[in-house]
């Protein structure tokens, strides 16, 4: 155990943090008291999210400039079997890179007092923070307790835990103090510049999934993407699955659905509607059977539960027409031969 004295006025001097209250609108993961974490980790939901993310190898394995040593590229001669083996290994690596950051409820701090010892009052002018630095324990399980100046021994709150974990077990990409880019002014600038992947990557590195700051940043980013309809920026990244989950959780999959239909991907549209039904089993269209046909399945959702019924139905119509035209063209070509 390591003991560290900490001046209590340090906390008062910490930079005030603009709470993104205006983004905690009706779109919130804590809505209705339900926990998205109950659904997020199920195999079915994970499979749907992966399917929606698509795997674009060029985007997943793009050149990352992380301050690594510059090396000359390596060229190898391979047989077909070796190449196939390598490709399957790379596909597995791609799956790992697409591991999705969990969508869970924001966990508020709970003050847990372990013991009260008024005799220790006035022992020192600063608090003492005790951290268990045993190797092999995860940051979340680590025991961190604080002895206040009035003698109370309590569990450390979230900020204290973050500081101690970062101090003794530095994680790459995570900084000791909150980066100013998560403050409202700078965050809005980043959203305007459409740097969604950067915001989310840095938020993942800095915060835990149940940190209220993380939830705020994510909510703001996803809302902005939904409004600007910039879904492509997150495709083939680890954040697309949680984006689809968030939109489905808040009953706002319409824009994404239209985007998918305009790209003529009916299988993904079906998956998205299925995800919506998994998260909201009480919807009217949840009772519709998928085996009736893909287009009918999506149409049922559009008719019964969609908020943008006309737009979704129009997108479906356009998709159907495009399919019809392409079938006609194929038929003409085969006749012409």
């Amino acid at each position: 155990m390591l003991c560290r004295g900490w001046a209590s006025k340090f906390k008062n001097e910490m930079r005030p943090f603009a709470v993104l209250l205006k983004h905690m609108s009706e779109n919130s993961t804590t809505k209705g008291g339900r926990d998205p974490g109950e659904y997020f980790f199920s195999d079915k939901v994970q499979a749907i999210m992966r399917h929606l993310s698509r795997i674009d190898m060029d985007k997943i394995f793009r050149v990352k400039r992380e301050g690594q040593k510059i090396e000359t590229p390596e060229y190898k001669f391979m047989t077909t079997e070796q190449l196939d083996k390598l490709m399957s290994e790379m596909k597995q690596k791609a799956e790992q890179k697409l591991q999705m950051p969990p969508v869970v409820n924001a966990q508020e701090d709970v003050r847990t007092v372990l013991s009260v010892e008024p005799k220790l009052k006035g022992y020192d002018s600063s608090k003492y923070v005790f951290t268990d630095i045993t190797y092999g324990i995860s940051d979340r399980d680590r025991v961190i307790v604080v002895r206040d100046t009035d003698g109370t021994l309590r569990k450390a709150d979230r900020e204290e835990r973050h500081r101690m974990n970062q101090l003794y077990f530095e994680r790459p990409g995570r900084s000791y103090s909150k980066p100013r880019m998560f403050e409202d002014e700078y965050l809005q600038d980043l959203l305007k510049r459409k740097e969604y992947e950067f915001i989310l990557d840095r938020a993942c590195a800095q915060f835990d999934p149940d940190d209220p700051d993380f939830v705020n940043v994510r909510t703001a980013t996803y809302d902005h993407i939904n409004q600007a309809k910039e879904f492509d920026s997150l495709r083939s990244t680890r954040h697309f699955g949680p984006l689809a989950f968030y939109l489905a959780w808040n009953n706002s999959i319409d824009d994404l659905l239209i985007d998918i239909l305009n790209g003529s991907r009916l299988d993904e549209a079906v998956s998205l509607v299925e995800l919506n039904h998994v998260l909201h089993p009480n919807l009217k269209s949840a009772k519709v059977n998928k085996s009736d046909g893909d287009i009918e399945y999506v149409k049922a959702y559009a008719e019964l539960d969609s908020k943008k019924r006309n737009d979704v139905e129009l997108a479906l119509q356009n998709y159907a027409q495009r399919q019809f035209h392409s079938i006609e063209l194929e038929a003409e070509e085969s006749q012409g031969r």
Partner: protein
Amino acid sequence: MNIRSVPIYFVSRIIRDSINSRVVPTLDSGKELFRRTLSLSSTTRQESAEEGGEKKRDPTKDRTKVIPVETSIKYLRSAAYKETYGDDPVWVNYRRNYKGSYPPRHTRKTCVRQGAIATGNPCPICRDEYLVLDHANVDLLKQFVSAHNGEVLSYNETGLCRRKHQELLVAIERAKDRGLLTFDVPFREYDYSEYISKKTE
């Protein structure tokens, strides 16, 4: 008048006063015995005739004026900048002066001393007063970040003086902290078991 003819108590005062100042032996009454213009300090001094008036400064070497960042940002988009630097980073066409085939390991400490350029070949930032290193001036900062691995280029490559290099590091750190400069963040791996709610277990 040679030193042997001067009494001992005068000699001690001469020695005390002579370090980095003019040798002006005085009588106890304060009246100067004689005035010598020999100086023991390393820098040359102006003659007393000019001491009363202002020191003449070359305006092109003057760096007392603080240029605001907004001006610098505008300058980087101007025709004058384009004509001077073209499309290359500002440090590309700068060459350090040194004797021999290998440059010294470190660049000079600073080009600007006492508010003026104190060298004949100032570094790429000091030579152009409208290049201000600030976290808002992202276009300028990007020129000093490696295109291959995202690292900040060392002063051996860019030729910056050490003070400007330090200012550059600070500006880049601030810009990254505010998200004005984006970069590739290291991958964060999750252990899902830590987040699965206890109810489902």
